[in-house]
């Protein structure tokens, strides 16, 4: 804990050693968050760079009164949402196109364990709008009202996007389950 405090204070002073320490410690975790909200790895890398720039420039505003990791996560999520809203026009076109696929009858999810990579593959296939709502609701734990405010959409839109995302993911997980069963047999 003292080490973390020292690292934060070093970052406030702009000491490169501590900045590198912070990067090494949290880059992977924050990259995982960025990957969940973006369309591809390249975009996630760009967002991650912006996240760290924001962290270093605003670390003096962190007053040790909450979880530092939570603070970092929040910056990563907010930066990802800003990036999503920046590309909203393009994302909307993609949503409409992908929504047709999502109307398929969902298949039941088998009682199987999935790896993080498999789940990431499923999430990657989601349209950006669905992906964002799903991440904010399921993983970050925001309410529909908060999500609607953050994304500038209606509460009902948030709910319907989550519902469609769920159907889409169930279908994808079922496909993965079938492939796994075939491999096992």
């Amino acid at each position, binding site marked *: 804990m003292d080490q973390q405090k020292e690292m934060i204070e070093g970052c406030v002073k702009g000491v490169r050693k501590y900045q590198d320490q912070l*990067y090494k410690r949290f880059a992977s975790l924050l990259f995982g968050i960025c990957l969940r909200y973006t369309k591809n790895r390249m975009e996630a*890398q760009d967002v*991650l760079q912006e996240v760290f*720039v924001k962290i270093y420039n605003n670390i003096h505003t962190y007053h040790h009164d909450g979880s530092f990791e939570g603070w970092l996560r929040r910056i990563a999520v907010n930066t990802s949402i800003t990036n999503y809203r920046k590309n909203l026009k393009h994302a909307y076109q993609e949503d409409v196109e992908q929504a047709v696929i999502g109307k398929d009858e969902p298949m*039941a999810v088998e009682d199987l364990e*999935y790896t993080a990579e498999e*789940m*990431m593959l499923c*999430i990657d296939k989601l349209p950006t709008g669905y992906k964002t709502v799903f991440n904010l609701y*399921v993983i970050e734990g925001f309410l529909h009202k908060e999500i609607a405010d953050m994304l500038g959409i209606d509460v009902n839109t948030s709910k319907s996007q989550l519902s469609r995302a769920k159907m889409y993911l169930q279908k994808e997980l079922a496909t993965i389950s079938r492939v796994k069963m075939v491999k096992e047999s």
Partner: protein
Amino acid sequence: MMQEDRLYNQFKSQLENYSPEVPAAVYSGMRRKLWLSQFLKFNATSLNVWYVGTALMLGAGLWLTSSNVGATAQLAKSHSSEITYVPVVAQESNGSCVQLSSCANYSYSCGDVKANRMGCGLTMMPSADSGKGVDLGNSSNDVNSGMVSNGSSQNSDEPSFSPSDEVVVNTDQITNEQPKVEAKSEVENKQKGKPKRTYPVVKY
């Protein structure tokens, strides 16, 4: 509902702490972006765009000032080397000789008065066709270089000039600045409060 919760829990547990490997290129890109963001932000303790901008402005200001001064000096120098002062010597009605221009490198005689002056280069030469005229000399350092000559000077170093002589100027040697100089001499005369004088006609 149970199935939905299970699905959500599965995703949450797997992805909440999902930490894939970060490509090495991200770090260098992040450093670049960080440097740029800090460079664009004012900070009293580090070099940033505000300091660079101020330094550039100061440099540009100094350069402009020095170039203006240099240009002015060059202009003054070129003018001083180009302007040819034409000394005009006249005799007033009471018989005294008057120098009407500000030339300072000539010798002349007017009646009984002889004088040597130095200070400016002159380009007027004796008229070839009339055999008499004004020799203004062309050396600023030659104190005794003759400038006024009626062709019958008593001494070649001290050409003489008579007010009754017609002053002839070789127009081939006269530069365009001559009218300005005469105007200047007139202004000087006005400033001194001297009355207008009549002097021999100068043919160009």
